[in-house]
């Protein structure tokens, strides 16, 4: 049963020297970060931080050197990623570009696209957003309605994208849209590279989330013209290109470390004095975390040798979301201290922040139900 086999990460995957370098860098850069600020890690936006990280060679690590990358392994990149998230570094300014847009452009882009964009990603200068979801197509991506019609010199795009994280500050969007008709439900789709700063007739408006924060946006394309060289990869191959991105999107440590700031707060309070029952719960939490990390690193190892572990990635994301969503419940079962948004007590503030964040963990990047549908199909359910 290969679906349930996660080969151990290759020996030497610890890369301890690199890990210590990253820790030293973060200790300095994040010295004045409060626990509450650390809790926002994945949603923290700092171009300055991303550029500094890139100067150390820790953005675009796996990209080839000729495109400004560092030709390092997926496992070395993994070490940097998990250290950033565990420390609560503000990473979203480069994260999506580094994780999936850059690798996609390298795999499918033209030489011109690679030369124009990838080095700037590796320099930590470009923020990417993902143009997939629409008002009438969330989980059902094949129902995409946004259309790019071929016109002289390029495409004319009409349609609306939603839940587009950080579109309001991003430099580029990779737009998933319809470019033709097809009998196959998954046919006729393409990906277009949209320069958000240079393109006219794109309206980006905020969608405030229930925590009161602005990450999401609605992005309206209204007769938007994109030049022919915006096409990324093959016309009509958008579906398979998107599917190959998902193993990168779904398997990383951001899929189980989202509540990590709360875990650190919880452990800090229990360190002084813990009952046997509290010890056991922390042991169970540790076991889950050790195993998730092992599985996630296993997927990094598979990516590193050119496999497409999309099914294993779906498993990691499903298990990871269950784990990170359970942390507020676990914290409440161990410590009697109310959540206080913005409170002076860091545990109370982090609990409040995390509690409001957790519903999104099993929605973003593929809902729990979609992931389980993918896993079920992988099991051979006819």
């Amino acid at each position, binding site marked *: 049963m290969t679906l349930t086999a996660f080969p151990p990460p290759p*020996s030497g995957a610890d890369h301890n020297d690199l890990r210590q370098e990253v820790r030293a860098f973060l200790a300095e850069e994040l010295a004045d970060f409060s626990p509450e600020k650390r809790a926002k890690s994945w949603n923290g936006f700092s171009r300055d931080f991303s550029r500094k990280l890139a100067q150390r060679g820790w953005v675009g690590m796996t990209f080839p050197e000729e495109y400004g990358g560092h030709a390092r392994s997926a496992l070395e990149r993994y070490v940097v990623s998990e250290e950033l998230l565990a420390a609560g570094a503000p990473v979203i300014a480069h994260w999506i570009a580094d994780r999936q847009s850059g690798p996609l452009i390298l795999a499918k882009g033209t030489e011109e696209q690679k030369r124009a964009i990838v080095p700037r990603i590796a320099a930590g200068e470009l923020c990417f957003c993902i143009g997939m979801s629409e008002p009438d197509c969330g989980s059902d991506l094949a129902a995409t309605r946004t259309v790019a019609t071929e016109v002289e010199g390029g495409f004319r795009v009409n349609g609306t994208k939603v839940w587009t994280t950080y579109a309001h500050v991003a430099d580029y969007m990779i737009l998933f849209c319809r470019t033709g008709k097809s009998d196959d439900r998954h046919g006729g789709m393409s990906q277009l590279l949209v320069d958000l700063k240079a393109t006219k007739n794109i309206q980006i408006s905020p969608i405030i989330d229930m925590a009161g924060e602005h990450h999401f946006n609605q992005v309206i394309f209204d007769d938007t013209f994109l030049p022919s060289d915006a096409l990324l990869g093959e016309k009509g191959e958008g579906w398979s290109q998107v599917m190959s991105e998902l193993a990168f999107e779904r398997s990383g440590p951001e899929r189980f470390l989202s509540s990590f700031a709360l875990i650190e707060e919880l452990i800090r309070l229990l360190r002084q004095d*813990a009952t046997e029952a509290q*010890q056991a719960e922390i042991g169970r939490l540790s*076991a889950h975390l050790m195993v998730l990390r092992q599985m996630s690193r296993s997927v990094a190892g598979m990516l590193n040798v050119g496999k497409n572990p999309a099914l294993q990635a779906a498993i990691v994301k499903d298990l990871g979301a269950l784990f990170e969503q359970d942390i507020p419940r676990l914290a409440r079962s161990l410590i009697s201290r109310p959540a206080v948004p913005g409170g002076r007590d860091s545990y109370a503030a982090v609990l409040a922040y995390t509690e409001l964040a957790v519903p999104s963990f099993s929605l973003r990047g593929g809902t729990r139900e979609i992931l*389980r549908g993918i896993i079920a199909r*992988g099991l051979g359910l006819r």
Partner: protein
Amino acid sequence: MESMIHDMAERLFRDHVHHRLRADAAAGQCPETLWTRIEEAGLHMALVPEEAGGFGVPAAEALGLVRVAGAHGLPLPLAETLIANAVLAGAGLALPRGRLTIAEDAALRLERRGGALHASGHLAMVPFARWADRIVTIAALDGVNHVLSLPVKDLTVTPAQDLAGMPRDDVAVDLALTDADAAPAYRSMGGMRGLGALVRSLATAGALETILRMSVEYANDRVQFGRPIGKFQSIQQYLATMAGETAAARAAAEMAAGSYDTAAFALTVAAAKSRSGEAAQTVGALAHQIHGAIGYTEEHALHHFTKRIWSWQDEFGTELDWNRELGRAALSSPHDTFWHFITDSTAQGVLT
């Protein structure tokens, strides 16, 4: 990961371990012929060095045999014999022929009576003791752990069994030991309890894979409301949950197997026993839900596997025991942050 010895074991068990054999074993009949085949193939020696009769494969691969055996519900002490031989070889003791088993550490009193060593006390829930030739355990003498090789014929065995009907016997010990039967342990390795927990985690991972496969097959074959029940989203979600738990159990067990003989073993085995036991609860419950009433019968094969995984949860330290141990380590670790504890917990140092 392709492995010749796993393939060999897979073929052997597929041909010879079937429902009748498991049922007969649960009724008390030792499958002697099958054990002879295992010995002929040399599987029981896989974890000892090549010069002592092993295959010369990495420990993690040799231990993988336990997962394969678990996947077939093998009613014989292969895992126990593998571990016992490795522990005896490590202590420089002779490797006896026949079936061996292991018992948790520190249950016996070891002392010098005159010139000879004497072991006495009581061993509870010893796996397959009545079918074994020797029991290997660890006891302290003057603060030094000693590996003991106890001949079962000189012990008093009172039969008892686990949920799956497998022998888990009570053993009374009161005998003088020769130099050939006791030697200082070469290292702690978390003792017999840790090694036992490791093999139970691996066997659980294998059994869970079989339970998942049986459940997928059943969901594809069983028709209700005019279609296979596997077409229903609720059943698909159950099976996907089972796959995730099964994958986690296997990754956990293989993480511990991969750190066999390293400093990381003490914590990885705790995580493995805890995580695989939790998976056993979830997967077992969902498998029975999917199979419906037929899966609750003696006639159906499912119970041989679910009873085993539930029994293994309690052996060589319960989940609660291992969770406490891991939690205590996390909360008392000298690391600045919990994260540093987690990354170090799987780092492979060499045990000295």
